[in-house]
């Protein structure tokens, strides 16, 4: 299929693009908005804010979420904060600087125009959230407080204790709840989208399964919005919530939407290491700990002495040694790879030697225990709850874990995929973070997309549809999609094999982490490209899913998601194999500087790699959207 990947970037100077675009885009008049039905899938920051805003504008919205309540979406777990170019601290911040930091932090693999727009609307997000009653941290005079975050030299992060994601999501959820009460949004909870419906090349609805009754139902609309989050759980162990999955995006991909840059995955350096085989997920410890903690490992491999028995002379503070300028505060990707190197060379600590120490002893000596308690008390408590170790007495053990995925469905400047009528927001799209996301930027992007971008751009698709009815749900395209969903559900139930769904998910996670994790090589990736299809075949011949479709069947839910991960994982590896460079979260061992840092290849790879599904068993086809940098000069990142 010939697909032209046109990002649809408006012409003109980067400062004027968004304003000019908003003036040029077609509008739907207020009285006509109620004639359009928009389906929003996912109720996290992007989905809830989009659904609420579209309903406020007058559109009829149908919201689907697989959670029991929209408030449970995984945005709720974000801790640190949200960036905005308010310059309330008078420290030299500006839209231009947030734009620049984001492009650079993304290792020059994002679209300039999208990032600039993101920086522009960031200031409106804070206004909006405060108006809704989000209880951001304040100074005594009543003004908003800010803090700094990795990858920036200004304080532009707004926060609500360690629960910023929770408070922002509740703000969006409450706005959504108001619209539900007003009858502008039809809320469908415990409802999981399992197929996208496309008629004559245009998205016209979705098919979903009710998770309690098993009933399969079609939803028809003038546009479909996916805000279904990232795919970090392809690694099984990640900081994502257990139910986070790629299914909605993947099924849309199989209906024609391109999947862009799936190999860009972010590994967060400060997570609690896995403790055993029963480990179900990993827990993130806020990055802010690196402000006062010192990271070290024993200088001699396999040194199993207790940390207090290891004298200074036998310790290696490897980040301070290798990066004297940034020390323990190097960016996420650099810190993660350095930890891996230590553990791989036998310097790991803990019962199964899979971590490095994050030590607060010198900070306590310098600042006193009270100050440390005030700054990190809740984090220390969380650590103790999980590990049973007291970090005031014994250094924390940390290790990197999968945290966020920058790749996702390809979208243009309007946030519309290559399938007309299908929009993709938040972590589910590939748009703004390039190859690496900066801290406190995920919340910003989710809310920018939902509150401000989509409500302005969706008119371009809807206005020409005025006077048309949505495709009726008894149309053959819906019937086919329902049959497709039914068939898959029954196929899963009929295998009746011997191994559980979790077994396969774990096995896939191991392959992904070992062969396509923090360090990737042609050899390891080739191996994964053989072992994933083999595991997938085994899944379809030996998975055991008990129970029936017509009940609340959580194994069946998970089976469908793992089946999709088994296909998607292969694409992720293929993308990593083809990208012969290292950039951001994608590190190919063949492409590094003499000091072991990521080495980009701008001549050959300054493009978005968007993959097209070509059918079961066929090799996907790669399409390229080249990236041009007119406003930021490409440079090698250095943190020495």
């Amino acid at each position, binding site marked *: 299929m010939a697909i032209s990947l046109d990002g649809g970037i408006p012409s003109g100077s980067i400062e004027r693009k968004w304003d000019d675009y908003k003036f040029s885009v077609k509008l739907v008049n207020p009285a006509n908005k109620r004639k359009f039905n928009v389906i929003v899938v996912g109720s996290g920051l992007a989905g809830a804010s989009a659904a609420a805003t579209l309903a406020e504008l007058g559109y009829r919205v149908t919201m689907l979420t697989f959670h029991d309540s929209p408030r449970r979406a995984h945005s709720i777990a974000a801790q640190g904060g949200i960036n905005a170019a308010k310059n309330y601290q008078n420290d030299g911040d500006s839209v231009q600087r947030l734009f620049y930091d984001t492009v650079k932090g993304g290792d020059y693999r994002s679209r300039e125009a999208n990032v600039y727009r993101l920086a522009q609307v960031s200031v409106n997000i804070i206004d909006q959230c405060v108006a809704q*009653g989000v209880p951001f941290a304040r100074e005594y005079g009543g003004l908003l407080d800010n803090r700094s975050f990795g990858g920036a030299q200004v304080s532009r992060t707004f926060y609500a204790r360690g629960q910023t994601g929770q408070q922002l999501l509740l703000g969006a959820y409450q706005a959504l709840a108001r619209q539900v009460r007003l009858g502008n949004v039809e809320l469908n909870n415990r409802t999981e989208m399992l197929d996208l419906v496309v008629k004559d090349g245009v998205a016209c609805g979705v098919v979903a399964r009710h998770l309690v009754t098993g009933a399969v139902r079609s939803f028809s609309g003038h546009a479909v919005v996916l805000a279904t989050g990232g795919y970090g759980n392809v690694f099984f162990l990640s900081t994502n919530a257990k139910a986070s999955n790629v299914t909605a995006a993947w099924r849309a991909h199989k209906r024609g939407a391109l999947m862009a840059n799936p190999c860009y995955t972010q590994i967060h350096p400060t997570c609690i290491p896995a403790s055993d085989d029963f480990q179900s997920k990993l827990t993130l410890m806020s990055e802010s700990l690196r402000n006062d903690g010192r990271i070290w490992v024993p200088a001699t491999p396999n040194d199993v002495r207790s940390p207090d028995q290891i004298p200074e002379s036998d310790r290696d503070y490897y980040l301070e040694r290798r990066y004297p300028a940034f020390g323990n505060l190097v960016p996420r990707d650099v810190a993660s790879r350095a930890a891996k190197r230590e553990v791989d060379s036998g310097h790991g600590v803990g019962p199964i030697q899979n971590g490095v120490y994050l030590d607060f002893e010198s900070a306590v000596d310098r600042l006193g225990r009270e100050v440390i308690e005030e700054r990190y008390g809740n984090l220390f408590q969380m650590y103790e709850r999980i590990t049973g170790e007291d970090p005031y007495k014994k250094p924390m053990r940390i290790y990197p874990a999968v945290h966020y995925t920058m790749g996702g469905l390809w979208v243009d400047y309007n946030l519309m995929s290559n399938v007309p009528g299908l929009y993709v927001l938040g972590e589910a799209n590939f748009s703004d973070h390039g190859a690496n996301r900066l801290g406190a930027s995920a919340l910003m992007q989710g809310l920018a997309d939902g509150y401000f971008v989509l409500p302005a751009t969706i008119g371009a698709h809807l206005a020409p549809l005025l006077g048309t009815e949505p495709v009726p749900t008894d149309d053959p395209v819906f019937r086919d999609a329902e049959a497709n969903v039914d068939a898959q559900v029954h196929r899963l139930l009929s295998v009746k094999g011997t191994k559980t769904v979790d077994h396969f998910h774990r096995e896939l996670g191991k392959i992904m982490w070992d062969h396509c994790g923090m360090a990737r090589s042609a050899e390891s990736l080739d191996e994964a490209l053989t072992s994933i299809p083999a595991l997938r075949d085994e899944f379809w011949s030996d998975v055991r899913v008990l129970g029936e479709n017509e009940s*609340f069947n959580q194994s069946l839910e998970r089976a469908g998601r793992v089946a999709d991960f088994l296909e998607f994982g292969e694409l992720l590896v293929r993308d990593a194999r083809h990208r012969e460079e290292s950039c951001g979260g994608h590190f190919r061992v063949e492409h590094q500087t003499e000091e072991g840092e990521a080495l980009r290849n701008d001549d050959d790879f300054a493009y978005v790699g968007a993959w097209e599904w070509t059918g079961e068993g066929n090799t996907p086809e790669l399409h390229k959207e080249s990236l041009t940098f007119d406003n930021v000069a490409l440079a090698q990142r250095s943190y020495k």
Partner: protein
Amino acid sequence: MDLNLKVWRQAGPDATGRFEIYPMHDVSEDMSFLELFDVLNEQLETRGEEPVAFDHDCREGICGSCAMMIDGRAHGPERGTATCQLHLRKLTDRETITVEPWRAAGFPIIKDLAVDRSAFDRIVEAGGYITAPTGAARDANEILVPKQASDAAMDAAACIGCGACVAACPNGAGQLFTAAKYSHLSLLPQGQPERFTRVVSMVEEMERWFGSCTNHGECEAACPKEISVNFIAMLNRDYVKAQFKNPALSGQRH
């Protein structure tokens, strides 16, 4: 360690439930309570028995999905801790652990340990918001919020909507959840215009679903975010005040 899990099994909302006892051998003290259920479910499935249904998601104590009565206590014995953050090392003194779903008329059982908490959504829909359509907001720093007020609002806003307060209450009352949301919004300057209409509509919706509060205080003891019952006092006070308020005069300062 070895222990017996005594788990409530119920095939559906209208089915008859029963306890089943599952012996668990050689489980690690470092395991979380939900990981214990993961292991149990793997064992059940391998034996060809249907796994135990239970709601869970983030496993970091923030999404509010998990909900288990553990030996008669909502979220178990550790204070300020949701089920997902409870680890077996806190339960080493027990031979048998009884696990039940939330028991409250307002939370009908879906299956096994999973219940329907959508009544909470209805209460928020009734008034648990500040009307502020997107785009109309003024600059964030034009609204001054004293730090103490903002901190108090955040204390209430920390609610994760898990429903432990209802489950722990002998009356199955929804006061602590409702009061937490109400107080979060009504302590802030932005929440003042709708304050008295909000309290009436939220309380009335709450009463459609839940029992009445008689000040036992079990809710605060069970709350994984340790939200104070003082917020219930604020809810009650404003509810009474609202009966004497004429909304047409609410633009007046005093």
